[in-house]
């Protein structure tokens, strides 16, 4: 089933970490397997990378912690070797790290080099985007990663009921648009031409870390935008080129968009006010962050909506 949520503050910043946590927690019944956040903090000159070195549910043999420690050091070593100046490296979990660094080269070689470390997956990379995802419900993930104090401009989130692939961090949303900075997607639905698009995108040099169909959407959109299309145009093309049922949310450094398939098969409720836009699979999620009585509506089939900051 899955639940998706998004919020964008049109002016200024908000407590997006706490807000998305409340939105996702109110939709826990839509997907208790894993929860994920894509949060946009204040933009910075530094790059911020979130990565994982292992999955929390994998078998932990002797020396698991030592191995992770070595791999962490290897990541740091490789970043230095490729020319990045590491600012801070912080572990929220022994398998999940947040690294800030200064780097002016291309992102793809850097991401590939870091992901070459055994078990490593770059979850997000950009100047303001941070993706945090882990097993269990939104409150426990937010607590483990200290997201309650996270302020920023816009965010999306996802609670997952796994249907297409494993219950692990790689299969959890949101997905970063590897190797394009600051783009992420959450998706509710199933794509039926996933394998075709995956092969097509792999041929143009992209890597995929999971067997999850949703993983292609972010890369698909980012590649179109890299080719010069606007986010809105790329999303409109996706209505014809992606097959299956979907409602997806996409975020870039300065915008939040939503697209629905032509059957309007997956729900979405939308609330707009002069201060913010909040949207989610269920109205209870929007009400979790807005105290007063609200009017909402459901976007129609084939609708593409984008809000810019």
């Amino acid at each position, binding site marked *: 089933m899955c639940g998706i949520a998004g919020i964008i503050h049109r002016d200024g910043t908000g407590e997006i970490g706490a807000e998305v946590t409340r939105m996702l927690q109110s939709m826990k019944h839509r997907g208790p397997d894993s929860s994920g956040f894509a949060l946009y903090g204040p933009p910075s000159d530094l790059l911020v990378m979130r990565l994982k070195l292992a999955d929390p549910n994998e078998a932990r043999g002797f020396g698991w912690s030592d191995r992770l420690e070595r791999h962490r050091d290897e990541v740091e070593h490789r970043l230095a070797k490729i020319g990045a100046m590491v600012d801070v490296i912080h572990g929220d979990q022994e398998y999940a790290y947040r690294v800030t660094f200064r780097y002016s080269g291309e992102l793809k070689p850097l991401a590939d080099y870091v992901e070459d470390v055994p078990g490593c997956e770059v979850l997000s990379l950009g100047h303001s985007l941070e993706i945090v995802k882990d097993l269990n419900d939104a409150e426990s993930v937010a607590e483990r990663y200290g997201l309650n104090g996270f302020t920023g401009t816009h965010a999306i989130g996802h609670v997952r009921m796994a249907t297409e692939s494993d219950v692990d961090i790689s299969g959890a949303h949101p997905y970063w648009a590897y190797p394009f900075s600051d783009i992420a997607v959450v998706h509710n639905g199933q794509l039926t031409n996933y394998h075709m698009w995956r092969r097509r995108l792999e041929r143009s040099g992209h890597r995929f870390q999971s067997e999850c169909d949703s993983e292609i959407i972010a890369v698909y959109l980012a590649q179109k935008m890299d080719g010069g299309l606007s986010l809105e145009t790329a999303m409109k093309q996706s209505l014809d080129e992606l097959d299956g049922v979907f409602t997806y949310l996409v975020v870039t450094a300065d915008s939040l968009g939503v697209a629905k398939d*032509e*059957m*309007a098969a997956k*729900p979405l*409720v939308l609330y707009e006010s002069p201060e913010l836009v909040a949207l989610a699979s*269920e*109205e*209870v999620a*929007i*009400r979790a962050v807005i105290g007063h*009585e609200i*009017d*909402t*509506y*459901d976007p*129609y*089939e084939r609708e593409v909506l984008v809000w810019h900051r």
Partner: protein
Amino acid sequence: MKISYDARGLAEPAAQAPKVATIEAGEHGSRAVFDAAALTTRQINLELRRLIYDEGVAEVTVRNPGAKHSLAVGILARCRIIIEGSLGYFGCGLIDGPEIHITGRVGWSVAENMMSGVVVVDKNAGSLTGAALRGGDVVVRGDVGARSGIDQKGGTVIVGGNAGTMTGFMLQRGRQIIRGNVGGGLGDSMYDGAIYVGGKVTSLGVDCVEAGLTAEDDEFLSRKLGIYGLEPPGSWRKFVCGRKLWNYDNLEPAERKLVL
């Protein structure tokens, strides 16, 4: 609110009616009011049942429903329910008899499988409005999502605004009145019944055809809109089943061989 589940996954197996409503005598039977903000779905429904079945209350007002799912479901008695606010998914499903007025909006599948009664929604509704409706009226003053009245077998769905894709999908009996525009695939695979549209039609579904309006249709439309105080549009168009897919008596080739 922490919700417990039993071994089968049923929510709040031990829930009891919270008995928080205030009841007062009225001109046409007693009236009750209660605030649902701090109650769980099960508690709200149990309180409604207690008031309607045990206390014999004629009119219940529910405050602050907070877009919770599955509220006011399975009520099988004549009564009035006023919901001050919005409902989530599956609101007012499986009811037989009540007159329900919702001052906010509703999510997907409102009044699904309703046998009789009236559900009036003042604002918008999600998809699948009046799914498998058997009787009674479902009135949405705002817009509705996709597939309104899917598999409808009776009753009337009335929409004040626009409707989405596949409206009246597999409609079997009963009528739909859409004052505004409708999306693509209107009346796809409908078996019978009629859909009246006041605005633009994006496209017709498989085996849905336009028919002429009769004097009976005009009388029906002005009567139904009059009851709910809705203004009629400039003109109406009527859509019915083209009966090209009526192959009920035809056997599949393999079956025919068996018969012979």
